[in-house]
């Protein structure tokens, strides 16, 4: 019976061949677990899309009501707290594993020729996902959302030349209003997810095109010198994507999903208080992944220097990251054989952790 259905499809569209083509991709053998982060991110994105779609059944992006709609989902919709919790912790997990995935690619030199474009496409995905996180934070509609919208649109207003216009366009006017919330909503649920859905296939397509290349440990038996580009074409051993690599992907996906699920059920998603523009004692807080940037904003005092913290440093930092494969052009891949890149990477990660930790401290407590 099953064979008959299969034949029916094969005669028309060659389905089996297509599936084998998809599943048969050869993956380098030794680093299997290190290569699971990419598919884990695709999995997490799917989770975000699915939970997000069903959160829309109850959500209203109107400013004073948005927070109450979120509260309603959490407390009055059956199992809504779980759905909301998965969406929140899934987002946090996604940003965390994006950083892990990026670090893995960075330290194993996987962005090098011929995979430069993969890195650039990956950076686009990274930028978009961070903005998705920020807009999601704004859509909760609580007090933090209100101030985050104000602060971040003000940050945008310090962009040279177009800054003022940019802020008016984002806000839909001079002030944060219902239009602002509608813009953020449209960007969060449609515009940026569409970009992600477009760029994930490009990212995957490029991996297929550049072939089964891996970390330096895949080439131990290879006698070619490191600066020979041909060395990286032939790993010592490969396995088919399905089921060998997919099996590892699924185990990692299950583990991470279990953690998200437990966090969603046990900790849940804090909704927070209604926004009060008149509050005299409220200290706005950013989400954890934005704290490093938040800390940066505290430096560079004065009129002439403000542009460093709001525009120049983040923009130049992002540009360097985007252009990384074109800056570091050596063929060497092992992190131990390119100490400068490795040390710089570790220092950058430490700086990020340090800024995040001090950025999370209370700044000007009302009781001082």
């Amino acid at each position, binding site marked *: 019976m099953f064979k008959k259905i299969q034949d029916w499809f094969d005669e028309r569209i060659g389905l089996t061949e297509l599936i084998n083509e998809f599943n048969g991709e050869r993956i380098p053998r030794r680093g299997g677990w290190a290569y699971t982060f990419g598919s884990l991110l695709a999995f997490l994105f799917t989770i975000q899309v699915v939970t997000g779609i069903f959160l829309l059944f109850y959500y209203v992006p109107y400013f004073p009501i948005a927070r109450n709609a979120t509260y309603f989902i959490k407390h009055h919709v059956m199992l809504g707290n779980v759905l909301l919790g998965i969406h929140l912790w899934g987002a946090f997990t996604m940003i965390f594993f994006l950083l892990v995935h990026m670090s893995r690619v960075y330290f194993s030199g996987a962005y090098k020729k011929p995979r430069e474009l993969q890195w650039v496409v990956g950076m686009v995905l990274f930028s978009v996902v961070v903005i998705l996180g920020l807009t999601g934070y704004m859509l909760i509609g609580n007090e933090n959302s209100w101030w985050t919208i104000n602060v971040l649109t003000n940050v945008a207003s310090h962009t040279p030349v177009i800054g003022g216009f940019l802020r008016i*366009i984002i*806000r839909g006017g001079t*002030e944060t209003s219902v239009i602002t919330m509608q813009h953020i909503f449209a960007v969060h649920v449609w515009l940026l997810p569409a970009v992600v859905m477009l760029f994930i296939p490009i990212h995957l397509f490029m991996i297929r095109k550049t072939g089964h290349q891996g970390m330096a440990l895949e080439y131990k038996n290879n006698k070619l010198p490191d600066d020979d580009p041909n060395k990286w074409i032939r790993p010592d051993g490969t396995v088919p994507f399905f089921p060998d690599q997919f099996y590892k992907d699924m185990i990692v996906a299950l583990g991470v999903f279990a953690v998200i699920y437990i966090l969603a059920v046990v900790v849940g998603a804090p909704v927070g208080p209604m926004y009060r*523009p008149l509050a005299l004692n409220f*200290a*706005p807080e950013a989400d954890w992944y934005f704290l490093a940037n938040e800390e940066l904003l505290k430096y560079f005092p*004065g009129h002439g220097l403000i542009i460093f913290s709001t525009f120049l440093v983040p923009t130049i930092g992002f540009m360097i990251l985007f252009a990384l494969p074109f800056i570091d052009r050596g063929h060497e891949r092992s992190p131990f054989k390119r100490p400068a890149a490795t040390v710089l990477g570790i220092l950058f990660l430490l700086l990020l952790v340090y800024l995040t930790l001090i950025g999370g401290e209370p700044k000007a407590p*009302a009781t001082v």
Partner: protein
Amino acid sequence: MAKSSEESPARRTFMMVVIGLISTVIGIALAVPILGEVLSPLFKKRDIVWTKLSAVSDLEKISPLTPKFIPVYFKVKEGWSINTLPRQVIVVKDITGDLHFFSNQCTHLGCPLHWIPARQKFMCPCHGGMFNVLGEVVGGPPPRPLYEWIHKIDKGSVFIQNKFLDNPKERGI
């Protein structure tokens, strides 16, 4: 019958030009209304209103160099709705007896300021900006002194406009 692109290179060039032109025309035709929609807020005039704050006689009673926070509720048109924007006005009487009407938003990135009586300073909870009671920057990253609301005194009452003095780029609010 027209020649195929394989039979005539000229025909191939012609087809490619036509494909390119059609794409460009459709693209521009779509991009213009989309740009118009997105940029529309730039061309809308902002709704400016006067709102009564308090009687002058009440404000003159406050002790000098002690900020008094008074909420003001602007009813303004925003997009398709008329909304009430609650905002804080910090009234400060200086030693000569003049009244200042400051906004409680930090001039750095707009967070709500806290008044710390023990230090006689406004402090920003976000990035550590500090202002003295007369709105001057005394620490942290703010690029300029506190914004002052545009105000007028009419028939013994103070009226506030939802607009800041000396704010060419319309930051804050």
